[in-house]
Structures are given as C-alpha cells and as structure tokens.
C-alpha cells in the first residue's frame, strides 16, 4: 500500500510542478509562485485523501535525492560570471556580506523579542539564502527544514514583488547595487525580477544569491551560538 502511495505521490508532485511552471511562464506573473502553488495543491490533496505527512515522506526522500548535486551546481553560474566577481569585488563582498549579517541579526532580534521557540528561530535565520542552504543550515542547527522552506519562499515572494520599488524609494538607482540587493535578500525569485531590469542587474543578483548562501552558511552557526542560546 505504501509503495502505491509513494509512486502516486511522485507522479502527482511532478504533474503539479509542471503545471504550475506552465502557469508561471504562461502568465509571467510574480504572484504565481511555483513552490507556493504546488505545495498548497499537494497539501490539499493529502488532506482530502486523509493521508498524514508521514505517508508522503518516502516519496519526498526519493524526489529530493538530487538536491545536493543541484546545490553544488550553483557554482556554475558563479564561474560563468567570474569576471564580474573580480570587477566589482569590493562592492560585492562588503555589500553582500553586510547585508547577510543585517538580515540574520534583524530576524534573530525580533523573533527572540517575540519569544519564539529555538527551533523556529533557527529555521527563520537563513531565510535570505536559497532553499538548499537554508534547509542544510536549519537541519544542522536543530531547526525544521519545512519551516525553513516556508520562510525562504515568503521572503523571496515579498522581495520579488516589493524589492525594486523599495530600492527606487531608497534612491538606489545603480544597476549593480540594485542587482546585488535583490540577489542577497530575495535569492532566486529576486534574481528573476532583477533580470527583467537588465542583464547587468540580473547577473549581479545571481552572483549575490550564490554568495549570500555561502556567507549565511558561514555566519549563521556563529550567530546562533552567540545569541541563540
């Protein structure tokens, strides 16, 4: 029985993903979030079929088998843009480095003041890195991977919808700076929006996204040990 559920779960997940992806590209709307839409549909299906999450876990384990190599592959765009890394090294390292620290410190401060449990705090801290990093960081620090995904997706959606307007409002017009900010804060979704502004902003966002993941992974454990108790 479980084997049948697993096979059907995989087929449904792939189908729902492909359909959400089709909708996203068909309507080209930042409010159609592929992860958010697919996840809601699958949760709804499981609830309707009265299946607990545990019944879906074997399917999940099979489907996420390639997540590790996919994350490692993030080096490829970084390598392709290595000339940009060199050209804007100071702005990139200082901007993205400070931004990641500010991002983590802000959420740490607010969630601690709000009295949240440690496993939730640890899951929200890496919200500005891409999901694979956030999942890895949350797991290593005793958080929950599903929560980490939710916070990353929420941040990415907010950042991709409001980010460019916020930057204009802050009088940040330089395309390199705008791209870096979008990639650092709103990772993949922000990068997609930055790309709409142009090649330069888009590439900088891609570079910032990859580096923000690495910086977050390096700094999060330190921050958690120092202040997360």
């Amino acid at each position, binding site marked *: 029985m479980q084997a049948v559920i697993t096979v059907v779960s995989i087929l449904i997940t792939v189908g729902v993903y492909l359909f959400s992806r089709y909708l996203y590209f068909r309507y080209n709307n930042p409010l159609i979030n592929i992860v958010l839409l697919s996840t809601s549909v699958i949760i709804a299906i499981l609830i309707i079929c009265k299946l607990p999450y545990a019944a879906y876990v074997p399917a999940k384990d099979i489907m996420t088998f390639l997540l590790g190599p996919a994350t490692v592959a993030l080096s490829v765009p970084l390598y392709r843009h290595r000339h940009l890394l060199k050209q804007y090294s100071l702005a990139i390292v200082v901007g993205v480095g400070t931004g990641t620290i*500010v991002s983590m410190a802000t*959420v740490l401060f607010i*969630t601690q003041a709000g009295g949240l449990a440690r496993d939730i705090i640890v899951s*929200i801290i890496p919200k500005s890195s891409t999901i694979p990093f956030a999942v890895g960081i949350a797991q290593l620090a005793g958080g929950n991977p*599903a929560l980490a995904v939710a916070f990353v997706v929420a941040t990415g959606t907010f950042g991709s919808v409001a*980010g460019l307007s*916020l930057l204009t409002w802050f009088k940040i017009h330089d395309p390199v700076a705008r791209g870096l900010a979008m990639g650092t804060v709103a990772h993949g979704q922000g990068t997609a929006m930055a790309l709409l502004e142009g090649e330069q902003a888009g590439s900088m966002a891609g570079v910032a996204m990859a580096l923000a993941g690495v910086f977050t992974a390096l700094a999060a454990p330190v921050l958690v040990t120092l202040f997360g108790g």
Partner: protein
Amino acid sequence: MKLLQMIGQGMLLWIVYWLGNQITATTGLPIPGTVFGMVLLFLLLLSGIIKLRYIQDAADFLLKHMLFFFIPIAVGLMDWGTVFYEHGLVLAAALLAGAVLPFFTVGGLAQLLRKGDK
C-alpha cells in the same frame, strides 16, 4: 547517448557533493556539505581540473528545475500550521524587517562603493 552523458555529468556533481559532505563530517563544522561542495566545484573549475563542458548540461538541467526539489520539502508544512496561527504577527514582522533593512544596507553600501570606483 545524450542521456548517458547527462547521467555521467550528474555523477560527477554527486561526487563533488559527497566530498563536500565528507569535509563537514571530518571537520565537524556546523556548515552544510553543499557549501563546501559548491566552493570545491568553483575551485576545480577555476583550476581547470574540471572543465565546464564536463558538467554543464547536467548542471543547467538541475538549476532549471531546482524549484521542484523544494515542493516535497515544503509539504512538511502541513504539520506546522499552528506555528503560523500562534506566532503569525512576530514572524511577519521579522520577515518584513529582515527584508527591508538588508535591501537598504546592500543597495546603499554597494552604490556608495561603486561611486568610489569611478
């Protein structure tokens, strides 16, 4: 042929990922193996030990469909509904401030430093 090539490239990426995990396991550092794997792959590409063409088809495919992997993980949220119900306000405040402040910091700093470049 094309499929075999993709599988081979995927295995090469898998080996780098595995090596990254070994670094995490050996050093005991609280840093995910994927981060070491990513840095390692970048260095291997820079040094020319791995050429881009050895891995690029598989890498591009995995990156193109990266969002797919997050869906099954996010389904786990179905067990966490009450957290959002109970702490929605604090979480929303944290996410909002945690996005707006770094937008301002990164954008402002980078723009300032770029002016220095010119």
